[in-house]
């Protein structure tokens, strides 16, 4: 069973504090959507409003076209996996999974069949008689997912379910969640502040910040064509480099120049751009390390981060601005060296004073 979810002009206030402001979003059936944003951006609140754990101050939430924001949580047909798993501590794993079905008087044979199927899928068959206190974090996580699966919900809601797992287990569970989605073909909403989880799991990412949606798009679209400066800075690690620049036009394309005299030719069309202050955005993989050049694109290495397949080089320019560039994994650069920087201007983004982004024609194609 699967369902589309529509959120229409939803507002949520806690006292005088507005956490979500006139938010609208459509999620088609079967889609894996990730709400991504920093702490306090309202992403968990939105998820809990869909689940029915928070009231809606104004607006509507619909599942399969039917308005559900006035229904109690249990009747909405959604299942939720909590960050803390929220397993019932005094019930066995089997009883945990059966509880929701027993409450709506599902036949025992049906319950048993569904638990057996979910246990097989999640490889927790040998745990069914144990209590949550006897399980490891990863096992609890699987039980929590199993408890959601047996309900055969219209939609799965995940509230930062991987954040309590260690790094290795988190990566593995992430892959298993992706497989689970392919197998169940169910609508899934996943809340996280971890952009890697968002990038790897999502069909579409909803980037949220400060009471509203910043951008909705496929992972690579978000990465390559961030709609705002916030999205550009939030998605991608290390964060995008930002340089304050003045712009001028050459052949209909923007050329950006810093006060220190650094000039970068971009592929951004000048149409619609007013004169004024802008910020140029460039990801570290589009800034290569070169031998010293003797011009403004030169600086001293502050910090090196060797990631194995590449090396991140934090370079301080003469004007004090820090730029992160990348070099090959076996880079010979060391801290304190003078190096040059080669900017791949065709991949640059421009952000105006309101934070709106302007992209080159090329930047959409990787």
């Amino acid at each position, binding site marked *: 069973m699967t369902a589309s979810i529509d959120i229409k002009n939803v507002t949520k206030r806690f006292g005088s504090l507005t956490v979500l402001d006139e938010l609208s979003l459509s999620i088609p059936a079967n889609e894996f959507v990730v709400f991504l944003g920093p702490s306090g951006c309202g992403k968990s609140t939105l998820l809990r409003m869909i*689940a*029915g*754990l928070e009231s809606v101050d104004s607006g509507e939430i619909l599942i399969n076209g039917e308005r559900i924001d006035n229904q*109690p*949580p*249990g*009747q909405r047909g*959604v*299942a*939720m996996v*909590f960050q*803390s798993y*929220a*397993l*019932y*501590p*005094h*019930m066995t794993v089997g009883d945990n999974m059966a*509880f*929701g079905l027993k*409450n*709506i008087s599902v036949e025992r044979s049906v319950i048993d069949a569904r638990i057996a199927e979910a246990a097989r899928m999640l490889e927790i068959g040998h745990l069914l008689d144990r209590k949550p*206190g006897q399980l490891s974090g990863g096992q609890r996580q699987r039980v929590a997912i199993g*408890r959601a699966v047996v*309900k055969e919900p219209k939609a799965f809601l995940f509230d930062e379910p991987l954040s309590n797992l260690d790094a290795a287990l988190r990566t593995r569970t992430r892959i298993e969640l992706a497989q689970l989605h392919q197998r169940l073909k169910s609508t899934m909403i996943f809340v996280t502040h971890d952009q890697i989880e968002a990038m790897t799991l999502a069909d579409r990412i909803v980037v949220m910040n400060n009471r509203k949606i910043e951008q909705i798009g496929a992972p690579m679209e978000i990465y390559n064509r961030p709609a705002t400066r916030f999205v550009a800075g939030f998605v991608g690690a290390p964060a995008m480099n930002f340089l304050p620049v003045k712009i001028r036009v050459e052949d209909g394309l923007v050329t950006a120049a810093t006060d220190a005299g650094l000039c970068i030719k971009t592929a951004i069309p000048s149409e619609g751009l007013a004169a004024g202050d802008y910020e140029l955005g460039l990801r570290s993989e589009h800034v290569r390390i070169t031998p010293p050049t003797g011009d403004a694109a030169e600086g001293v290495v502050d910090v090196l981060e060797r990631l194995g397949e590449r090396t991140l080089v934090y370079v301080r320019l003469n004007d004090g601005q820090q730029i992160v560039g990348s070099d090959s994994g076996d880079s010979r650069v060391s801290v304190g060296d003078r190096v040059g920087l080669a900017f791949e201007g065709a991949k640059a983004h421009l952000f105006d004073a309101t934070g709106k982004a302007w992209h080159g024609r090329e930047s959409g194609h990787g």
Partner: protein
Amino acid sequence: MADPVNGNARRAESVDIYAPQWRNFLFVAPYLFIFAAFLVFPLFWGIWLSFHKADTFSSGPFIGFGNYARLFRDGIFLQSIWNTFYFVFLTVPALALIGLFLALCLNRQTRSAAVLRTLFFSSSVLSVTIVTLIWRIVYIPDMGLLSMIYGFFGAKAPAFLSDPDIAMIGIAIATIWWCIGLPMMLFLSALQQIPQDIYEAAALDNANRWQTLRSITLPSIKRTFVLVVIIQIVFQFQLFGQAWLMTKGGPNNLTKPIVLYIYNTAFQRWDIGLGAAASEILFLLILVAAMAQFLLTRRKADA
């Protein structure tokens, strides 16, 4: 570091901040002294006394289980044991269930709940003298509060302090009113320990209020329930003040608990040996209850 004198290549001991140090004993010494002088010593002296024929002025010859034999031939003592059990039976389940009910009702963040919590707990701070005074005013025939209420409906109030059938119930009601604060508070703190997300999961699992209470709340506070029951058993076994002040153990010894029997025997009839023996019986009864608490609360994995 090597020991230069013996030439032993012994490693210097590493610093263990948790190693026991004798000077720390000084911190517990004052309490230990009081504990030994006023609890351990009287305990063993009491046992010693219970095997002797003793009165105020002298402790006489050793008589073995003579005092205990006398006790179990004494109809009043047997009556007082029965009275005590009857009183525990009347008060403990009521305290546990009413305490739980109040805690369930008042476990919310509203101003009225806070006021009511304070109100229900406030009776606990009263001394037994005040409590019995209040309830004698309630029970007193013809002019008490109960008589006025019954009189309003043209009925006659039950004589809680003089009717042999209900005198103990009268004492039990006063005791429950007096003691309800602690069970309620223990249940409240247990309820507040239950993580909120379990309730959210239950709401998503379609559990109605009754299913949530039965399957989530009650199992989560099972250990506190046992704790409350056992604390109250230990406490209510020691009934004394209410019975002494409200009925003096009457009518016809029907509300005389073990402690009052001990008081009468040891300090009014000055038969110290017999009183000591009765004390040991009470001690054993309470010990059994306390051990039950220890054993039940130790099984943590079960909770």
